């Protein structure tokens, strides 16, 4: 494979018709860069002692440049004589916020504050795209090195504007009982006029138990029950739609496998617009407590939350006979429930030796309660992996983070339906083959201090949660996986579909089977992604003050940190903590897809910290 050139400099072609990766590195470069400018102006004025006026204007402007070149000689059919694609993406988010805050304390015990304000957000994203094929000079990759008819340009401009007014009312009694009321009304540019104004309130309260007990003279010191606070909150948050989705746009281009329309047609590549969209709302409720004991040596912070999003604005996949692939719809409800617990303890506090431990624990469950139409899942086709053997999807009455994958064709009794040659076949419809959401995650950090040494480390735990091992699938396709070791023969336990009779055909488990049959199903590549890992361990030596006194330094520390030193997992791949296509994928993303990605690196850092 490394010998990728013919003597005449052209690409050596291997069966399979794909470009050699070594040739690709040299001849299909992708470059990108960002220029960023951030500006913020702030005006603060106190016309009266109780009143503060604040105005803030900020803008974040950045430009991304992207260029992808495919040199002549590639085997990609649309770029045989070379191709270049480049785009310039200019983003600007400008925010204007005005807040008037009035504060007043009555009879020393009752504190009131009221803030009212206005917030304007203006988002503008402009993308200029230029593509060209057929380089005139085959060695010079530039858009100028093409004839005019081989070039195309396009522009997109997304604009979203939101104007909001809000009020924020705070009250407390002796810093013991707090009440917060908030309300906001937004007007958005992305929802049709008539429904584009929406109101949403929130209320939260907390009580500092320890202070309350003291106030009531039921408690005198903090020796045992040092601090206690309970809290509760309810909120309802509205959200608008993406820009420009209330109407269906027209386009004068299609794709490389459909006729050039020679004029405007319905833009089938975008979601169909919907003039009847209304805002979506998420209602959330949360209760929690923060309790500390024995002079704050032991603490527990507990939170329970649940939320439900209704009328979600989804780019929903619709039956083609409706007239589109996707349309924006209000529909779909997602329920989210979870608990979070943080425990911390200063277990040992001696003069020369201290040990503190922090444990956090989180459990979350997201369930899709409703979907529009007859949909039983929302597919994320931009998160396809393993040559379309599996993709991320949210399932109705199931996980938001499911895996939608190919399975063997079976009859109602669950028996395999085999082809005439005796091999299993992939069923047309995909099935729910896994849930990427973990049962819980936990992190345990310990810090030991002995004299001038300090050792801290964190153990990270994830229990449950499936990972789709697309890397293994890829290895199967190239014959490098241990799953392909069995090269004997086998009679599949199932019935021949065409005859309905049990199979007696002994079939060879050869390259053809592993590449073209076995690798096309997904469920055998779903693995438990539980892990225990030593996320980091740091050893620090702080120079003693006696030494520092001789220098002008206020502090001097040496550190050695090891990252990802230990990973205990039954997962067969390198590391179950991977993401298939990065953070850019929409919807529930691509976490839990091990798709030839690069796992977090293991490493050791050494550091020197000086304080002046």
């Amino acid at each position, binding site marked *: 494979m490394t010998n990728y050139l013919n003597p005449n400099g052209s690409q050596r072609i291997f069966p399979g018709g794909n470009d050699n990766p070594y040739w690709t590195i040299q001849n299909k470069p992708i470059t990108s860069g960002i220029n960023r400018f951030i500006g913020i102006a702030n005006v603060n004025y106190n016309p009266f002692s109780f009143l503060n006026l604040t105005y803030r204007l900020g803008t974040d402007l950045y430009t991304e440049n992207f260029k992808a070149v495919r040199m002549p000689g590639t085997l990609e059919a649309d770029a045989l004589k070379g191709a270049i694609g480049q785009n310039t993406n200019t983003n600007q988010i400008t925010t204007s916020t005005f807040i008037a805050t009035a504060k007043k304390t009555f009879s020393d015990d009752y504190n009131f504050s009221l803030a009212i304000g206005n917030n304007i957000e203006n988002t503008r994203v402009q993308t200029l795209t230029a593509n060209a094929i057929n380089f005139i000079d085959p060695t010079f990759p530039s858009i100028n090195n093409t004839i005019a008819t081989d070039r195309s340009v396009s522009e997109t401009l997304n*604009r979203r504007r939101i*104007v909001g007014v809000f009020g924020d009312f705070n009250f407390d009694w002796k810093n013991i009982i707090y009440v917060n009321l908030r309300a906001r009304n937004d007007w958005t540019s992305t929802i049709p006029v008539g429904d584009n104004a929406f109101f949403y309130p929130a209320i939260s309260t907390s009580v500092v138990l320890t202070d309350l007990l003291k106030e009531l003279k039921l408690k005198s010191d903090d020796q045992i029950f040092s601090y206690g606070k309970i809290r509760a909150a309810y909120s309802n948050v509205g959200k608008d739609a993406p820009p420009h989705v209330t109407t269906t746009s027209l386009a004068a281009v299609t794709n490389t496998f459909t006729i050039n329309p020679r004029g405007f047609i319905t833009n089938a590549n975008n979601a169909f617009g919907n003039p009847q969209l209304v805002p979506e709302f998420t209602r959330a409720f949360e209760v929690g407590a923060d309790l500390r004991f024995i002079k704050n040596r032991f603490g527990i912070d507990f939170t329970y939350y649940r939320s439900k999003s209704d009328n979600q604005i989804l780019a929903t996949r619709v*039956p083609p*006979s409706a007239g589109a692939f996707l349309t924006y719809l209000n529909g779909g409800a997602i329920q989210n429930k979870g608990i979070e617990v943080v425990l911390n303890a200063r277990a040992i506090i001696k003069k020369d030796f201290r040990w503190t431990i922090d444990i956090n624990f989180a459990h979350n469950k997201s369930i899709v309660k409703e979907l529009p139409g007859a949909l039983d899942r929302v597919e994320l086709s931009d998160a396809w992996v393993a040559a379309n053997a599996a993709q991320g999807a949210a399932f109705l009455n199931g996980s938001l983070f499911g895996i939608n994958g190919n399975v063997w064709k079976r009859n109602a009794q669950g028996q395999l339906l085999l082809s005439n040659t005796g091999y299993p076949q992939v069923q047309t419809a995909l099935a729910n083959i896994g849930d990427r959401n973990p049962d819980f995650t936990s992190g345990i950090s310990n810090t030991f201090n002995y004299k001038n040494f300090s050792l801290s480390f964190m153990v990270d735990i994830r229990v449950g949660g499936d990972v789709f091992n697309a890397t293994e699938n890829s290895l199967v396709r190239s014959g490098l996986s241990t799953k392909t070791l069995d090269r004997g023969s086998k009679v599949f336990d199932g019935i021949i579909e065409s005859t309905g009779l049990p199979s007696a055909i002994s079939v060879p488990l050869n390259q053809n089977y592993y590449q073209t049959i076995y690798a096309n199903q997904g469920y055998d590549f779903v693995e438990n992604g539980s892990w225990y890992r030593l996320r980091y361990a740091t050893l620090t030596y702080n120079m003693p003050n006696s030494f520092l006194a001789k220098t002008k330094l206020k502090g001097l520390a040496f550190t050695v940190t090891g990252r990802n030193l230990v990973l205990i997992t039954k997962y067969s791949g390198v590391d179950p903590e991977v993401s298939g296509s990065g953070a850019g994928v929409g919807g529930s993303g691509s976490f839990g897809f091990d798709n030839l990605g690069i796992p977090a690196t293991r490493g050791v850092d050494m550091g020197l910290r000086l304080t002046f």
Partner: protein
Amino acid sequence: MKNKIIIASLISGMFLTTSCKKYLDVNKDPNNPTKISAASRLIGAITTSNGAALWRGTREVSGLVQYGTTKLLTGTNRNAEQWRFTASYFLWQNAYVYTMPNCVDLINLGEEEGSPYFVGAGKTLLAMNFGLLTDQYGAIVVDDYYDGKTQLNLLPKMQQQQEVYQRIDKLLDEAIVAFSSTTNATGLNANGGDIMFQGDVSKWKRFAWALKARYLNHLSKKGALYNPAKIIEACSNAFNADGMDAQFAYLSGGIQTDENPWYSWGGFVLTTTDPNNALYDPRYFAWSQFFVNMLSSFPVTNTVFQDPRISRIMQPAASDGQYRGLKAGAGLAGGQGILANGQPGDATKTNGNDYGRFSNSGFYTKQTSPIPFITYSEIKLIEAEAKLRSNDVAGALAAYEEGVKANMRKLGVSATEINTYWTAQLADGLTAHFANLTQGLSHIMRQKYITLCLNPETWVDMRRSDFSQAIYGPSLVRPVNLNTVVFDANNANQWIRGMVYETNEQTRNPAAVGDNSEKYRLLTPLWWDTN
């Protein structure tokens, strides 16, 4: 100072409320229009009906009815030819999503703008696309389809095929009325979009009548529903001369998708020019021996006679200058297909140069070749069938002669060659054959096979003819390497009758689709295919 600030904020607050509405009015996409005039939408409705819907409705079917044959016995190209159809067959979305919204928009815009001609054009094209769909799937969505006015229907219901045929006929009747309108605000070619008829409404009207004739003629198995008189009437109002076929030329010198897909982007862009190279695997490699037989022998007698059109459609083999085709499903390794008389061909011809190419070979697969929707020749052959079935033998013969000769003229065959061919036909017993219904139909259907080259209408004719060898000759046999998961290897008379609905429809609209198993869909005859 304090007062000034308060006043200033009050003023700015007032300013905000009044200008807020305007400030928020930015949801109109400045780059992509959402509504433009009908005159600017006609071209897209025509091009997508051709290069999205019809193209995808014939891309695989052309292998199914044995026009094209593939080279390799591995890979996906062979699937169509060997009838390995699954829910991943995508005519459905190419018609419903890429094409038909443009026809519906055209109807709505024409109505709004007071231009009934655009209403007529939209309805004609929409009816044709519904026809294309129903003839492959049977029951399809008509009533609940996109109407361009309200939110999309999430769970569209399907109409049974008999109802679909009523809807098609009604749409075409309405189109004919619209084309006959005396007032019309904007002409069809006002923006240069009428690439078929350059604004000639009389030709559009004939186009609508032509489609009426085609769909009425599909009912030949339906007893009393088959009405030859109405078909003949429709034919008489349809195309009546050369040069008015519903088609447009693909373009050269533009982008690749301006070209005819059989020439390039439809699976014919290759990295090598050597037909014996392993990477040389176009969607179709060579024309089939069956099609070669249609063009080199006469119906009924199977007398060998070279149709002059063969050199306009195909190219001879580079090795010996002979016209030769492969056996459906057998690949290049299978050698030459069954000959016109039913005898096996030369199985030793397994070199790529023993066959002329499929792509870029002649009238139908060149860079700028049109993909005709419906032609004058087809209409005359429909008329011939209707007249033959109503015992007007002389009328049938006359229409048949014009149908055949019109296609020859279109392909650039000289008058001398036409006369030689026709004389030979007559000498082979043509007139006598027409006295017999099956033999007459054999002539008509085989000529339709030639004139409908690469059109999915041929699959309709073959199903109406029950793939009969009495009609198509002894070389029409099922492909080798047949998809025996669905088709019974031992029943030579079991043919493919319908298509599997697309997976996207199956999973998102399951109740309307019903049983979508390959076995059920591929084997179950559609409504008009049952007696």
